[in-house]
């Protein structure tokens, strides 16, 4: 089932290339919404969500790396789909948008390119680093 093509958001191109501080990688608004789920922190919601994300992301980065040599569109598309929403949830907005765009391209039948995968891995590692900083900070 083909979808009409969705234009990329203007701020997605060109993608950011420099490592950024956790604050700029993770959207403060999204983090605030997480905190709202557990206002007095009694249930450690933020920590639980972030460490779940951290473990899942570390695993998924490994899965992406495995695709670097000969990227498979459907595997990477499914990975991007999952990462898109979980990343949005923890506020990794840039990474989420990149995933969304990638998923979209895959769905439209584009061939997965090694440099695209490398770019996703880079953004993923930035998000992972930011999350780790918060978890250990």
């Amino acid at each position, binding site marked *: 089932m083909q979808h009409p093509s969705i234009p990329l958001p203007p701020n997605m191109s060109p993608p950011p290339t420099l490592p950024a501080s956790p604050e700029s990688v993770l959207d403060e608004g999204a983090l605030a919404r997480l905190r709202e789920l*557990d206002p007095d922190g009694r*249930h450690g919601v933020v920590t639980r969500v972030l460490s779940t994300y951290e473990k899942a992301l570390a695993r998924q980065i490994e899965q992406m790396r495995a695709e670097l040599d000969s990227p498979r569109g459907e595997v990477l598309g499914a990975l991007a*789909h999952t990462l898109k*929403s979980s990343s949005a949830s923890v506020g990794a907005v840039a990474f989420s948008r990149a995933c969304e765009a990638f998923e979209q391209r895959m769905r439209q039948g584009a061939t997965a390119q090694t440099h695209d995968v490398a770019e996703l891995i880079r953004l993923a590692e930035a998000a992972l680093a930011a999350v780790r900083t918060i978890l250990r900070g």
Partner: protein
Amino acid sequence: MTTAPTSGFDDLPERPQVLLVDDDEVNLLLTAIALRERGFEIAEASSGEQALAALAERSPDVVVLDAIMPGLDGFETCRALRKLPGSENLPVLMLTGLDDDASIARAYEAGATDFFVKAAQWSLLAGRLRYLLRSARTRMELERRKSELARAQDLARMGSFEWRRNEKRGVMLSVEALRVCGFGSHEDVSLRKMLRLVPADERRALLRTLHACLRQSTVVAVDVPLVLRDGRQRVVRVEAEPEFNEHGHGAGYTGIVQDVTDRRQAEDKIRHLANFDSLTGLPNRRQLIWRAERALEVARRMQHQCALLLIDLDRFKNINDTLGHSAGDDLLVEVARRLRACVRHSDQMMEGAIDSVGGRSHRALEAVGRLGGDEFVALLPEVTEDHDAEAVARRMLEALRDPIFLGGQECFVTASVGVAIYPRDGQTVVDLLRNADVAMYSVKAQGKNATAVYSPHLAGRGREKLELESALFRAIERNELVLHYQPKIDVRASRMVGAEALMRWERGGKLVPPGDFIPLAEDTGLIVPLSEWALREAARQARVWQQQFGFNDSIAVNLPTHMFERSDLVEHIHQCVTAVNVPHRAIRLEITEDNLMKELQNVIPSLHRLNEIGVEIAIDDFGTGYSSLAYLTTLPISELKVDRSFVRDLGITPQSSAVVSAIIALARALGLRVVAEGVETLRQMEVLHRLGCTVMQGFLFSRAVVPDELARWLEQTVLPRKAPWIGSAAENEGGPSAELSGSVRRYR
């Protein structure tokens, strides 16, 4: 986590159970946290496979399913889930991406209840879930109600239908309604097809009714007889209300059909039982009186006459007594059949008003009914003269003339008919019935088997006397007559040597003294059935006492002279005693000296025959008449009863003791027993005893009492020798104790 459920969802479970399915652990965790916070109980599954496994374990209230997952995706999971037993109606919310139209369409296709765009809008998600739960609950409730309604309709043999004017699709019948009318459950039914089930003769009237309803757009409520295509006959109640279009014109009808056959049959049965005699099938008293009242209304309005005929069978009680009740019933059925053939009898059940200004429908009131027992009434709603009613009465008597076979035996029955005509003989049904009764009774008094029209001067009798006669006539049938017994005492032996039966009439709770009705009975001839009854009853009592205390003497019954003139008296007595298995001598007959002498020639043959079979005769009130002593010597009699007037004067006037001793002397000479009546004092007893009379009766010993009391008197007074009269006479004789104790043994 104490957020109360949003108001408006109070009917939901306190913590609805949600199965959350998402391969994205972060989302799963977040959604779970958010929903728990909002009052849901969460079970998590991170794949379609896991979700199905969890559902097989236990069923949640709602499933939240991510659409895109590796392995079994949301759509396939949903499809598989719908096939699990018990999950057919489980609400499933599919989570899709924003603007993912394809997924939304596929979600519904896969059987999802609804979709929701995946986002961190937790309150919206929770609201949607509650809405889903409520609508699922409503839907379940609806399904349950629907099946309950179907079941209730089935049980009530009821179904609904819809009919639209000017539409070709015919009548829309629910499955239940189709069943009521005997159609297949998917059959197309037109109004014409339905009407074909109505028998032709009813169809026209029904169509008239329906057209009238349609014209005026009024409610339809009719019971329609149907012959279903399998031949079953049913009565179907149709109730429908009109529906109107936007212009206020009748657009059609919606309503129900219900099979009311059983109810109708029960109602008909009840109505029939309440209005018809169960033995003969004729209208009963209630129905007849109702008809008579309607007939009087019509007669009053149209100024014509109507007639009531009271028909009473002659000697029915005899037939009942000799052939048994079942034969008696058969006889009544046959009589009913013959009587109803004599009028334009209508069995039609009638309760409503008679709508006949100038019509002839009051003719349909004509009938023969059974008032009870052997009493029938014929109602003739219109007669022009007495003759009309008399003609019917004659036809009835004629119809009864042929013998009726009962148990292989020919039986002849006659009737007496009394006629009363409205308005001449009474203005109300009660008056007419009473006067017909008086007329009927006058027939009985004059020899039965005839007809009489009421007349105020009937037989020239006063009304009161007529009524008394009429009542006495019924006294036998109603068992109002009783016999009381006065013992005859042998004072030497202090023992009872017999009893005299005296008739009493218990009328409306009061005891009518014999003096008030015996002369009347003799005047009217009623004394014959009365005497016949007394003989039967005395014989029966002799048997009862025989078994109770060894009674072995006679019960004396008073008979008027003309009973002795009847050729069947001997046969009757024979039947009475053999029926209860007592010897003939158990009955003794008393005839007054007066009567005997008046009819001597006619009576003598009977007396001889009675004597031959062992029935002894006593002459009552002896000494007051003018007996021809010459005849006295030749008559087959056994006992003289000294009139009470002589006994009363004993010891007061010397003449009385002279008369008594003369009677005693005469009796001795003829070998007759002497009994003194009316002995009230010990002195009288002593004088009589001295004069040589030993058998006595009177208040000194006992008044006339009911049988049980007499038995008690023997047991408590005679047996323990407690009465003042016991002993004084015996002492004079010296040593009668052996005989006394003998009697005690006998009567124990």
